[in-house]
């Protein structure tokens, strides 16, 4: 019988390493050592990766369009503006 997938977790409180169910990825579980809640790594949300690629791609395309049609200043404005938006989105995640 195949075992269910697991993720390696390092407790942020007692530093003990243990395994948690794959379904808890990106969430929180109690450490079997100290009993405290600790984050489970691995944001496996596929949409997250798609969003990251789309945002970076969109930023690069907009900057290129600015360069072609508006020159260096337009490209700089779009690059800085895009970086600010991406930064804000990153913080909000």
């Amino acid at each position: 019988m195949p075992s269910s997938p697991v993720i390696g977790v390092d407790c942020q409180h007692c530093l003990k390493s243990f395994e948690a169910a794959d379904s808890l990825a990106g969430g929180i579980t109690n450490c079997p050592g100290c009993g405290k809640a600790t984050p489970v790594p691995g944001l496996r949300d596929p949409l997250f990766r798609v969003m990251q690629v789309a945002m970076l791609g969109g930023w690069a395309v907009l900057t290129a369009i600015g360069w072609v049609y508006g020159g260096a200043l337009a490209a700089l404005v779009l690059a800085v503006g895009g970086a600010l938006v991406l930064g804000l989105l990153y913080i909000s995640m």
Partner: protein
Amino acid sequence: MSLDDNRYLIRRKVLTVLGQKFHVYDGHGKLLGFSAQKAFKLKEDIRFYADETMTRERMLIQARQIIDWAASYDVIDSESGEKIGACRRKGWTSMMRDSWEILDINDIPVAKVQEDSMLMATLRRLLGGWIPQKFHITCSTGIKQADLRVRFNPFVYKMEVDILPEATVHRGLILASGILLAAIEGRQQ
């Protein structure tokens, strides 16, 4: 976080410009928790503090994934630092009738939260927010645990949470499911 009362009130300000503000009161009207949710937060993170000074965190409800279609939300008692369980939204079912599952610390469903009836749920979706929502929480053996009732008020969202004295499901999880209903389902209306 001690939750000895059987009755709670969750209050959400409707006319908040950005984000959401929640107050949770116990049965005697004493403030139990306050939360100010930030707007534009992709990954849901609801932190409850003892009061509006937001210095002492009491409870944390955090989404595992960014998109909340059928997301699970871990519930942590911030005072003890332990996870007490999770709440999982049933995405497709909730389109017609709001449905959630309450999970224990091992992600095993221990109770379900469901809108009172399919007929009323359909009418609410057709008539907007004019018919206040009601929810029942029943454990996996079918025994009722709590009732959640939304009071009609166009300016302030109020949800009464009545927990049955014989309830076996963790009261923190029942309260968290009410908060999630107010935060997630309330936002969709």
